[in-house]
């Protein structure tokens, strides 16, 4: 069975997702167990695949036993096994977290379906990552999109529906663009297999048709990624979706979209394309990335709702990922890849904490965070770590990504990017510090200001989130520190992938 691990990686969660509603009829908890165990299995399989890839090189698995390009291939290399680990781990964390958290949004009767759709969402993402067939990416993109729309729409407020609807419209436009791009590629090369495409494309690099194909593929994915200025669907989605969903989406959905862009830009197309293409693509991406970084940070600054703030901050962070891609150098790519991991953990932790706050208080305004440090000390500690990490404080993961992006910018002579990164770090520091400040140094709303009274003995009882929410939150937050200090492990993995991508 070891040989079939690549297939099982997807097939197990896929079939489990299908069975979940049936199992859930007995008791909804069983469906939760199914999801948790399956995502855990996927995580373990990803780790084992990582080992295989590191020791024995890339894996090619032929679905149905058909040799590519005639059949569908699962092609696993350093890059996608790395993304797989991120996705499956965050999916596992999200699954554990959702056990209690989702009580806020739905009743028990529908929970089995929630978990089924959740697992389908994750499976779709993982399917996009491991496949070596570009049309297969589209199919799994649709699985993940459809389930994503529904997951958002179960949010408590009615705005969730509108957010989900708009996301559906934008997502479908994006996916259709992607499909159109595939069509152009197919028309020019006659193949859908990524490796085969990569081999056959170079002779068409200068054609207008291939440039168009590239444009539609990347634009389609950028809509999914929510790259500025195609981000406008995203804040409402993250704001009104259930917190567990926002966390997992921010941590995995955008990452997989970014992965797909990297795949298309550097595996389907090879770096040579960017010198031969009729238009110069790099500056466009670069400008969009910088605009995203600045606009995201500035807009985040203006928000009063914490979830919306995190959403806009994601717009900025996505800018970082694209910035690294657009530099088209090994260090830039390392920066992007490492930021995939880092942002997944940071944003995951932040949304987890926000979810815990919603769970306890039901409110999401920043005002509401005042004095929470005393009530939810552990959650708030996790929040603080993740927030510091977002600003890029050394010894946290955020620093590592920014460091690589800065190194890459200087390396290719774009020194002006360094102030951009710094400025955005500063803005990030400002909008997160507001909250940290309120959490630890302000009395809770409605409470009397202390003045000089002795409150050590009468402080409000700590009422932190339940363990099922705290454990994943703290784990992810701790990882922000662990990978900030021992950054070399993920970086070396990212470096291997980057070198291959840019060879």
């Amino acid at each position, binding site marked *: 069975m070891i040989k079939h691990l690549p297939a*099982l990686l997807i097939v197990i969660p*896929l079939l489990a997702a*299908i069975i979940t509603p049936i199992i859930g009829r007995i008791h909804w908890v069983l469906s939760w167990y199914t999801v948790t165990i399956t995502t855990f299995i996927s995580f373990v399989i990803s780790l084992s695949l990582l080992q295989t890839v590191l020791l024995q090189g890339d894996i090619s698995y032929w679905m*149905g036993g058909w040799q590519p390009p005639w059949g569908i291939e699962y092609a696993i290399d350093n890059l996608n096994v790395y993304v797989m680990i991120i996705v499956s781990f965050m999916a596992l964390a999200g699954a554990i977290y959702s056990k209690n958290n989702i009580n806020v949004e739905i009743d028990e009767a529908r929970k089995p379906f929630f978990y*089924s759709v959740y697992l389908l969402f994750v499976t779709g993402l993982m399917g996009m990552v491991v496949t070596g067939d570009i*049309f297969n990416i589209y199919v799994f993109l649709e699985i993940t999109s459809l389930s994503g729309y529904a997951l958002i729409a179960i949010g408590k407020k009615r705005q969730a529906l509108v957010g989900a609807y708009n996301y559906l419209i934008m997502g479908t436009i994006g996916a259709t663009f992607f499909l159109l791009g595939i069509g152009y590629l197919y*028309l020019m090369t006659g*193949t859908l297999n990524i490796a085969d495409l990569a081999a056959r494309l170079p002779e068409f690099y200068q054609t207008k048709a291939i440039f168009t194909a590239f444009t539609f593929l990347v634009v389609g994915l950028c809509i999914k990624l929510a790259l500025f200025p195609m981000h406008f669907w995203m804040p409402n989605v993250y704001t009104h979706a259930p917190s567990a969903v926002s966390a997992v989406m921010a941590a995995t959905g955008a990452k997989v979209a970014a992965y797909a862009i990297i795949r298309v830009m550097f595996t389907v197309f090879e770096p040579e394309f960017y010198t031969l293409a009729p238009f110069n693509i790099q500056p466009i991406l670069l400008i969009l990335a910088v605009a995203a970084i600045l606009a995201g940070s500035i807009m985040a600054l203006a928000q009063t709702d914490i979830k919306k703030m995190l959403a806009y901050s994601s717009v900025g962070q996505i800018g970082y990922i694209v910035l690294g891609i657009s530099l088209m150098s090994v260090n830039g790519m390392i920066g992007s890849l490492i930021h995939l991991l880092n942002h997944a953990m940071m944003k995951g932790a932040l949304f987890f904490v926000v979810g815990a706050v919603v769970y306890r208080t039901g409110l999401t305004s920043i005002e509401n965070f005042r004095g929470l440090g005393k009530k939810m000390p552990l959650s708030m500690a996790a929040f603080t770590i993740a927030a510091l990490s977002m600003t890029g404080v050394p010894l946290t993961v955020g620093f590592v990504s920014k460091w690589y992006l800065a190194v890459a910018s200087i390396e290719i002579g774009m020194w002006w990017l360094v102030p951009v990164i710094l400025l955005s770090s500063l803005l990030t520091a400002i909008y997160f510090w507001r909250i940290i400040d309120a959490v630890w140094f302000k009395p809770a709303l409605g409470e009397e200001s202390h003045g000089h009274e002795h409150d050590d003995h009468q402080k409000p009882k700590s009422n932190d989130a339940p363990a099922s929410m705290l454990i994943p939150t703290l784990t992810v937050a701790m990882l922000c520190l662990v990978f900030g200090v021992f950054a070399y492990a993920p970086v070396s993995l990212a470096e291997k992938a980057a070198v291959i991508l840019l060879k």
Partner: protein
Amino acid sequence: MIDVAIPLFLVVCGIAVLLVKDLMSSIMIFSVYSLLIAIEWVRLNAIDVAITEAAVGAGISTVLFMIILSRTKSVEECKKSISIPALLVAVGVAGVLLYGSVDLPNLRDPNIAPSTHVSPYYLENAYKQTGQENAVAAILASYRGYDTLGETTVVATAAFCLILLLRGRRHTNKDLKKYEDTSINKCTVKGVGIKPTKTSPPGSEQDKDIIKKTVTKFLMPFIQLFGLYVIVHGELGPGGGFQGGVVLGVSIIVYSLVFGFKEAQQRMSVKAKDLLVSSGVLIYGGIGVLALFFGGNYLQYNVLLPDPKFASIIGILGIEIGVGITVAAVMITLFYETVRIDANG
């Protein structure tokens, strides 16, 4: 000449769909549009696609649109005419497409890459390797069978999403009344469908219509038999799990349209139908897993039995049935759940 005319009609319909204010007419035009496009598929020798398009585009989606329309408003309000940003984006996209199509190969050219690179292999080997005479079915179920598993999952996902969203009580918004009578709604032209909850689900009024009932009862086995035939037939000619599944699903939908929702539920309970959604995909995925135990790769049917070709035929038949079950069940789900909506609201 007809090859020129049909696309032109398509364009006309496509534009008309957007221009018509009355949503019901718009949907009808869209239905015509779907039929036209199905005809275009026939013209292009894509029979399988044509059948699916006719069943899905002209059939199921029209029904869905109409059900939804009966629950909401049927008139688009008289708002602004031209959106400049949308126009800019559309023109930009058209520009890129035009730019890209300059050096696209001519259509129908037998020497273009798609016809010379991968597909000849299918045409040459499909029968030998899979026992399918219909190359489309061979690719769908075997060469790219994994895509089809994904696609079946998409369908099942849609069903689960609907159930997740529509079953159980959603909290209703208290402020709704407050805004309903304010100026925002004044723009309504005819006021049709403002109180959508009053319209009953299509079907229930027609309880008394004996002729319809008898005819339906008489036809039902034939439609369903036809559906089964289409599912199984994919091996030889156009047809397959999707098309057959849609037909099967439609038969139940027609039944419930004629006999009413409750009656139909007695024939096929919601629980049983939910189970069917899952079991179809499970059959499909299970056959794939079975192949693993026989030493093949995932979805490698030819290891299932000693004779590879026969094994392949059986395997494909199995998955077509799986697809058929899921698709039929999902089509019914789409109908059931949307019809049930206002019972919960």
